[in-house]
């Protein structure tokens, strides 16, 4: 019998601490598989965030640095400057990347650092127990907006404000070579996501500039749903605000 699918050798044997059905695990696999397929296993440094993926350094089978909350792009930029031919990626959640780390991601992107950033948008602060994230949808409940996110009051005063579309924002910059938003809702989309991540690493190794994959994910625990319902929510609700697609692609030839 021929093996069709098995655990990637780029992942360690450690059991992941993620909740049942949390798509952080899927995202990890896609990165791991891409690295293996591109032959980068022995040429790769990852940067873990502060967020549910804080222990990512236990799972990726390569050298890893754990960064301060939101600062992974700065850490990754510096690592890349030291090891210019090594694949460097950061892995960050929406609280980490889109809230506290907004300056760092924008500047790594505009500088055009040859790094790959995997952005897990699950519309919530997972690790700290479900507070509103910058990407929480209007109407969505979180522990710091228990009645659901409300943008403004009727008389125009700000309550929770609007969510941020990070891919669109970064696409206005000249540094990024490739930006795509994907989701992990079903096998077909998982495979698309994988393709995007792999392409991002390819661009990075070709020194085309900054690459960024926004991965829409579920957080069953803090959304108080089943894992399957969480993915349905991603598919039916999140895509309304965060449409899938390529937001920037300078092409294979460009430098």
């Amino acid at each position, binding site marked *: 019998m021929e093996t069709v699918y098995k655990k990637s050798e780029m992942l360690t044997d450690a059991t992941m601490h993620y909740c049942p059905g949390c798509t952080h695990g899927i995202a990890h696999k896609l990165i791991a598989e891409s690295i293996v397929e591109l032959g980068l296993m022995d*040429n790769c*440094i990852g940067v873990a965030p502060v967020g549910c993926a804080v222990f990512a350094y236990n799972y990726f089978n390569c*050298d890893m640095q*754990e960064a*301060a909350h939101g*600062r992974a792009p700065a*850490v990754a930029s510096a*690592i890349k400057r030291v090891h210019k031919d090594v694949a460097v990626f950061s892995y960050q959640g929406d609280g980490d990347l889109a809230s506290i780390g907004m300056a760092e991601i924008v500047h790594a992107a505009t500088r055009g650092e040859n790094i790959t950033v995997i952005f897990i948008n699950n519309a919530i602060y997972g690790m700290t127990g479900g507070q509103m994230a910058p990407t929480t949808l209007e109407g969505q409940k979180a522990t710091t907006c228990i009645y659901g996110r409300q943008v403004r009051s009727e008389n125009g005063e700000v309550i929770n404000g609007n969510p941020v579309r990070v891919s669109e924002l970064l696409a206005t910059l000249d540094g990024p070579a490739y930006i795509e938003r994907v989701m992990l809702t079903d096998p077909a989309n998982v495979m698309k996501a994988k393709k995007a991540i792999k392409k991002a690493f390819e661009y990075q190794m070709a020194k085309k500039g900054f690459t960024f994959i926004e991965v829409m994910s579920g957080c069953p625990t803090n959304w108080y749903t089943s894992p399957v319902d969480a993915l349905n929510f991603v598919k039916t609700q999140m895509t309304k605000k965060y449409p899938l697609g390529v937001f920037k692609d300078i092409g294979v030839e460009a430098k």
Partner: protein
Amino acid sequence: MSEKILMKGNEAIAEGAIRGGCRYFFGYPITPQNEIPEYMSWRIREVGGDYIQAESEVAAINMVYGAAGAGARVMTSSSSPGVSLKQEGISYICMAELPCVLINMTRSGPGLGGIQPSQGDYFQTVKGGGHGDYKMLTYAPSTVQEAVDILYDAFDKSDKYRVPVFILGDGLLGQIMEPVSFKPMKEMPNPSTKDFGTTGKHHGKERRIVNSLYIEPEICEPKNLQLQQKYKLLEQKEVKCEEYLCDDAEIIITGFGTVGRIIRTAIDDLRAKGVKVGMIRPITVFPFPGEVYKKYANKQSVKMFLDVELNAGQMIEDVKLNVEGKKRVEFLGKLGGYVISPEEIIEKIMEVIK
């Protein structure tokens, strides 16, 4: 030692760091240390290194974390408000035990304050500006030459103990021009080969992980105890202190950094008047030369100490902790960006000996 050349403190310090092996610099502009990043921005590429003007001090210190974790010799510099922003990053670096060199050309605070010289960040540096129990090997140079020499060896020290070396300077040290001589460039691989640095090349062998997370007390306690052990070791091995005319001194004037050079003038002038004064000048403020103070606190001939600082009284606590009430400890402070003059010290001495 080569010929002496005239150089601004900031630039000389940058060159000293380069000679000592610095190959990466991440900075953000702030007066009075701008000449350091400016000099580094072109100079470091000449020696095969790299430079980023970070988007902020927060980014800069985290870039230091990244590059140091990747095994490089790396430095950043800033001044007071910028250094405050780096406190989280510094705490991370200390927990992850990453070698690097950090500089504060202190200006007057608090807040936006002013940009003139000050020593108001002593506490921040040696007690803990960031969270948790950590220490840095902290030097407070008094002259540009001393600073350059410290920088030259700073990376070696930092690598040896895996502890940041912190240079506690001030606007005076950064802006003054003095003659200075440089030792030759240290030879080393870039990035220097360190046994903990991430390289991406370790598959198969043990992976390298740079981390400051120790979530369970079961691992966080031993980690902390190990750090404390290291700090004890620094206290045993790395104390540096200048004693000047202390042997027969009845009054010991003490101060750190640039104040030391001013005290020296005051002492010479006081001696000329027949007043028996001497100076203790900690060159390392952590580890603090407590034993030196203890020695003179126990000495019959010593009547009192006068601590002089460009702040409201910070190092004086470390002085008192070692004098332990055995002798009077007077304080002469200067706030708001004024630099104390030898005359003011002399006046204070004449007043206290009355």
